[in-house]
């Protein structure tokens, strides 16, 4: 029972951790401000043709 509960919690965590699945196209968004980005890049799709590591971060 305890194992099943843990498995259910892990499954729930996995589904809420990242809504985007592998193979799925990343939703586009516009940059409100940017630093050190590709010259002329104003939105995510301007990075097409490159491999992109997209990170969400927060100042602690």
């Amino acid at each position, binding site marked *: 029972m305890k194992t099943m509960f843990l498995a259910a919690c892990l499954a729930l*965590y996995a589904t*809420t*951790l*990242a*809504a*985007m*699945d*592998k*193979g*799925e*196209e*990343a*939703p*586009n*968004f*516009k*940059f*409100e*401000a*940017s*630093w*050190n*980005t*590709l*010259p002329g*890049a104003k939105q*995510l*799709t301007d*990075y*097409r*043709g*490159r*491999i*992109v*590591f*997209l*990170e*969400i*971060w*927060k*100042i*602690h």
Partner: protein
Amino acid sequence: MRGVPHLNELNKKYRERGFEIVAVSSEAAGTIEDKMVKGASASFGVVKADIAALYQTNGIPHGWVLDAEGKCIWEGHPAQLNDAQIEEWIKDLAPGKITREVQKPLKASVEAYNKGQFGKAFEAVAEHLTSEDAKVKADAEYVNGVIEKRKAAGEAKAKKLRDAGDLVKLLPVLEEEAKGWEGSEYGKACGDEAKTVKASKEYKLCAKAADAWAKLEPKLNDLADDKAAKALEKFIKDFAGTPQAKLAEERLKDLK
């Protein structure tokens, strides 16, 4: 922000080879600039945008790796990113524009390359590869290396599609290569292959299969299992040997 040195290192190593980091925060622009860009000396791309509704995550920081077409190929904590993974992701990637400052004799080649005129760029760089000026020679080798890598990426992309029998996607790749490499033997070979593909029965069948699959696939979920299976069996028979027939076979297996 503890991960900034790791990302700075990856950015320094791989940016020129087509690996880009885009770190996004919804905090105030002034805070981002003070703390991240100036304070933590982030050298990679930093962006202000509110994407919480688009990209759901419980843990921060969290990241996704997107391929050249913007599709997700990895997700996890930034600290898990390593050299071996990145090398694998970028190995077949066409290099981006050349942004490095080069010696004057190489400027014409770089300009042509950045306009997508690879054949012209290749021709323009050749004479400088044996230059007696060490700086010119070094830049020529660099530019030539980028051009060669661009060619290898185009060849790899075409090979992948050729091997998969996906002639519908192969044709525009060959046409694009033929245009970019105009004036070179490689460009001519791509142009000739594009004409052969376009005139082939296999291409016509693939094009029909792609159209038919685009119509059938969205309807499958609304059909009863036995009717969906019959439709898939007919599709497999009508379009045997096409990539869409393989997709239909997979759907049929799932149904059974």
